[in-house]
């Protein structure tokens, strides 16, 4: 059965929501923050970043709130926060399962 895009978040999606939960950011800042936060383990190329932002925007998990110069600033929506929290819970449950094993 094909995997639905938002059954669980992909790692890059999770990090994008994490970045926007921290503060409103433009695309480049999101990419830089994720690279820094994950110690370069997770890097987002422009193609992937655009696809993820587009998907999250379509899902109304993020929204564009303003344009500063040529930069478009995005913010996370309440629905996005729910998605992020659900994913956190899922990951925690996974870790708990691992620890109990």
């Amino acid at each position, binding site marked *: 059965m094909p995997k639905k895009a938002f059954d669980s978040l992909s*790692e*890059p999606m999770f990090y994008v929501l994490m970045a926007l939960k921290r503060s409103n950011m433009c695309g480049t800042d999101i990419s830089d923050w994720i690279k820094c936060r994950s110690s370069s383990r997770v*890097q987002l190329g*422009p*193609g992937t970043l*655009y696809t993820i*932002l587009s998907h999250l925007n*379509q899902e109304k998990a993020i929204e564009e709130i303003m344009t500063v110069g040529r930069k478009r600033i995005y913010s996370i929506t309440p629905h996005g926060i729910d998605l992020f929290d659900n994913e956190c819970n899922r990951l925690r449950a996974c870790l708990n399962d691992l620890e109990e094993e």
Partner: protein
Amino acid sequence: MSKRTIKLLPYAGFEIDGIEGWLDDMALKGYFFTGSVSSFCMFDKETPKKRRYRIDIEYHDKFMPYSAKRELFSEMGWNYAGNMFNNYIVYYTDDESVTEFNTDEFHRKEQIKKIFSRKLSGLIIILVLDLLWIGFPINVSSLNISFLDTSILICFGAVNLLYLSYLAVLFVRLFRIRKRNSLNRTYHDHKRAKALKCYELLSISLMALLVAIMIPLTLNDLSSGDYYSIEDFNKTIPLPLIEELDSNINEYYDTLAENKTANINTHDLVLERDNFSTEQITDLTQYGTYIYPGKPNNNEEAYMYNAVLYEFKSENKAEKEFKRSIPDDSDASVSHIEDTKFDNAVYYVKAEGEGLILLKDNYLIVATFTDEVLLKDKTDIFYEYMTK
């Protein structure tokens, strides 16, 4: 100043990773992509250097204007190089430290899936059209079309086989891109891709040539049967004298009046009206057949053409039959024919010749009697002319 060069893209449009790998390798040879028209890519020839090219597939998602999107990519180190096909945008970077364009296989696959669906439906349509095209000579043969001799059939089969095998290869390649890692550009052998491209061009060219040859042949045959071509008109053929025909025609009509019917082949000669000049009409009259392209104004005018009306009956396509109908008071008459098969009213005049002419829509149909006994000589002359 850099020199511009055009090269043929060796990959199919859906093999994005192959195209990217090819563009990378072209840069190493000093060819830098600037744009493309269909499968022909334009390059600037400069000093070779390592450059990465990546393709972004643009859909009308309305998330971000194209200009803003390119701006974002540029900020992240990827510059716009040019367009390919309708919605492939090629970006490049010379900086090896810049993060790869697509870093997530899952999201890249989503784009690939969209291409896959489009290309698959396109390929299925082409396949169905080709199968219909293969069925074409079979249908035409059932109409006893003579042009399909053995050699043409062999060529037709061979070219279609070639084309079908090319389609099969495309199907295989299309399904392969779904399976493999789309971020990996190391699967491809450019030489093999070039050979396949030549194969594709050969099969498409031959198919186009075949279509160009067969369609006119078929149309020509369907419109004129086996007997006629414009070039067949030969003014040097000895003509039967109109007077001779006049002296015998009454006898001929009388016989028809007794039998009431006469079999006629209606497609012995079919001319397209556009191709039928006044001069050629004159030629026909020299053979004893007059054409009257409309209803005569009066009986006198009709008589002048020695007109006889035949009612066209088309219940049976294979044996078209003309029923003679002569009014009691005159053997010269013209009437209006109404037939469900002939939506437009058709008027025609049968004159001295042993044929009959219909003007209908864009066609001028000349029919000939084939089973006449009387006026046999004249009939033969005319028929010989018609079937020349």
